[in-house]
């Protein structure tokens, strides 16, 4: 059974002459327990696919299948117990007036857990934050600590699939590595399926088995990480993107 299967997905914003097609006819699948990366330039529609899967947009057509179930435009709480998402910017994804404890306990109670106190301690430990962080507010946390809280929130309902929207791009380089290691450890421990968006090929190479390259809302090519490293591509655009990115990394 596949974790996520997407067939001929279209997402658009606006109507008539204002209509912008953000994703055009995208198809790919992520095996259960797999780890899949979506790469491409800014504005190529990567994040839009994630948000369409999570039900944050209504204007999509095509087929989205998650864990064998075909999704309609409405998502129930059962869906959100299985699929969770980590947002790009940890400075924007935590409510400014809610402490870590409030964020996690509300999430847990929404999913109907009873032993909330014990679970919060466990979650904080799992993401590498001690009990000292439990009653802090976002303004008392660094970017990396905030992202750990966001990951703890996503893990709270014990999902099987985690969608990651550039989870490290807003963090500085040393913290990026910590968060990436945390994510790969969590995947190994909890047998999670990852669908990850990034424009950083090193990040994708660290976490993913397969990648899809996107350009202007279309998927140009799907290839394995080994092929990516060896520059074994069928499409010119992929090669250009990979070379540009690697050249940048060599220079940088």
């Amino acid at each position: 059974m596949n974790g996520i299967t997407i067939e001929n997905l279209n997402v658009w914003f606006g109507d008539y002459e204002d209509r912008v097609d953000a994703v055009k006819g995208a198809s790919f699948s992520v095996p259960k327990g797999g780890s899949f990366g979506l790469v491409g330039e800014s504005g190529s529609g990567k994040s839009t696919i994630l948000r369409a899967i999570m039900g944050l947009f209504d204007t999509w057509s095509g087929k989205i299948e998650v864990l064998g179930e075909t999704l309609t435009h409405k998502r129930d709480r059962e869906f959100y117990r299985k699929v969770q998402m980590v947002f790009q910017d940890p400075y924007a994804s935590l409510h400014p007036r809610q402490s870590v404890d409030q964020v996690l306990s509300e999430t847990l109670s929404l999913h109907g857990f009873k032993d909330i106190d014990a679970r919060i301690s466990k979650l904080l430990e799992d993401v590498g934050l001690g009990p000292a962080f439990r009653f802090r507010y976002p303004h008392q946390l660094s970017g990396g600590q905030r992202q750990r809280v966001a990951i703890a929130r996503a893990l709270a309902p014990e999902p099987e699939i985690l969608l990651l929207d550039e989870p490290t791009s807003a963090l500085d380089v040393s913290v990026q590595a910590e968060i990436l290691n945390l994510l790969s450890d969590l995947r190994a421990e909890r047998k999670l399926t990852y669908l990850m968006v990034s424009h950083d090929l090193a990040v994708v190479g660290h976490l993913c088995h397969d990648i899809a390259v996107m350009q202007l809302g279309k998927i140009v090519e799907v290839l394995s990480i080994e092929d990516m490293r060896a520059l074994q591509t069928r499409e010119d655009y992929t090669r250009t993107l990979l070379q540009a990115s690697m050249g940048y990394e060599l220079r940088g």
Partner: protein
Amino acid sequence: MSINDLPRPTWREWLLTDTPTSRNHARLANMYQAWLAFRGNHMAMFGLGILLFLVFVAALAPWLAPHDPFIQDLGARLQPPGTPGYILGSDSLGRDILSRLIYGSRITLYIVTLVAIVAPLAGLFVGTVAGYAGGWADILLMRITDIFLAFPRLVLALAFVAALGAGIENAVLAISLTAWPPYARIARAETLTIRNTDYIHAIRLQGAGPLRIITKHIWPLCISSLVVRVTLDMAGIILAAAGLGFLGLGAQPPSPEWGAMISEGRKFILDHWWVATMPGLAIFTVSLAFNLLGDGLRDVLDPKEGKS
């Protein structure tokens, strides 16, 4: 070294810690830090002091007032300020103005409190629902708001009081009915910026419904700007209440409402200036205090100014 040798944290250190140990501790620490920021603003503290004094006077009115505010003494009418027994003078029926001002503070506080509860709550409700729901609900609610905004405030209040009958309760109702639309506008504007943030998306992804999102996640962020606006509007509300009293549509004689007292003093304003001036000074002082307090609160509460 055992744990007992460590110096115990003082209250101040306990409240300023970065690592709170319980929910209540975190809440208290937050409040204390806001208080410290507020305390630094001397004008706002001055305003707060005046208002606390007003509350104190209103609460202890029977003990503080030298005379009964309703007892008339025609032999001692229109005594100038400084007359023994009449520190601020007496009015045309020989009633002590100071006593009437002290009792009148109760009416002022009553009006201010009721309006400050009713109008912002109604505005908050209409504004957040319109902003979050969008579509037809938004159009309908905001056009109703526009209609209320299009009327001159005092004229609308006058029409309401005229229709419902004169009296303090109806004056409060009339002022509230004319005061809520600006709050709805503010709340809607705040909601529009908040509803598309990632932290609202994140709670939607936990399966939270619109009711929970509006009341638990959007309201706390709207309330600070509303509180600031309410305190700044308070002066206007006091003046509107006094204006209704002056026109004879608010509190009815012999009630010692400040606006009604000015209205009574109007007849003698040239010969006996204190009858109208003393309640006027009281209205001025309280309005000023609310304005100063609002300014200070804006510095503390405005999320755009402070840390996120």
